């Protein structure tokens, strides 16, 4: 009986996840109301799907999804890698071009995912932020969090470490119910 129940649960979960998966896939190029709701309920920003980007950028810091900044930001960042937030992150010409193409094609202005559109909507005219944490949308979303949870938290240290608190950040999900601050626990406002 127990085995039967387990099997049934497994079958239900499999069926449900395959349904979700196929809906998400169709949702990508659909954009209709029903599908976009489905998609948004799952992910906030398109996950990183480029191995060169993961290797080159993600080996030093969290591989921020391209959909978290507009095209102009990525272009500016990629043309100033010699002084990349105080460090030198220069790339070979070929890799450089490959990554600019990837970042631009997936930048926030090209995406209709929730976080991307909201970040874009919060920018001032002509603003070209180099840090995601400089955008008004980001600030509004984090303004209730005390300094000791992030900057003065030895397990976090900086807002640039998305994955330190957002447990599914790497999958492109920044839902507040998934937040777990090291040494503090769950955070819900």
């Amino acid at each position, binding site marked *: 009986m127990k085995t039967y129940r387990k099997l049934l649960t497994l079958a239900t979960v499999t069926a449900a996840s395959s349904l979700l998966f196929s809906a998400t896939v169709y949702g990508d190029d659909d954009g209709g109301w029903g599908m976009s709701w489905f998609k948004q309920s799952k992910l906030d920003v398109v996950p990183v799907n480029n191995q060169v980007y993961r290797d080159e950028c993600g080996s*030093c*810091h969290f591989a921020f999804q391209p959909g978290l900044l507009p095209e102009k930001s990525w272009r500016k960042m990629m043309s100033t890698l*010699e002084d990349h*937030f*105080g*460090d*030198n*992150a*220069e*790339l*070979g010409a070929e890799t450089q071009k490959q990554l600019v193409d990837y970042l631009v094609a997936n930048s926030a202005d090209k995406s209709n995912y929730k976080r991307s559109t909201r970040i874009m909507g919060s920018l001032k005219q002509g603003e070209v932020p180099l840090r995601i944490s400089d955008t008004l949308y980001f600030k509004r979303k984090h303004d209730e969090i005390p300094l000791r949870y992030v900057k003065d938290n030895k397990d976090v*240290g900086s807002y640039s470490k998305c994955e330190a608190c957002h447990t599914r950040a790497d999958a492109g999900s920044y839902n507040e119910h998934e937040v777990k601050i090291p040494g503090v626990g769950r955070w819900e406002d």
Partner: protein
Amino acid sequence: MKIFKTMLAAGVLLVTQSASASPAVDALLKVYSDAGAGPFSAEAGERMWTQKHNHNTSPAERSCGGCHTSNLADAGKHVKTSKLIEAMSPAVNTKRLTETKKIEKWFMRNCKWTLGRECTAQEKGDFLLYIQK
């Protein structure tokens, strides 16, 4: 069982040997030699490792050891970004010195950041011998 142990020992020996003679390092040393540099010296590399370089922007004083520590077997931390850096020595970190492209990429970045210019072929050869030691 005894045979197994012997095989294991042989395997370990093989791994240690290949770590001390990396094909990537050999290939690069040849490139540097062809460019007119050499002979290379681990001692010269070691001296340069702790040599301090002055800069106008923070941190004003930079050296290889400033981030990598002066012990190649130890993990380090970037003095500016606090990024954790795994140990440089291939004896404790087998991923080190295995890819020529990666070695050249980090030489370019770190020589410019630390020395304020790219390293010469001679300097890069000296560094490789020191790190590989």
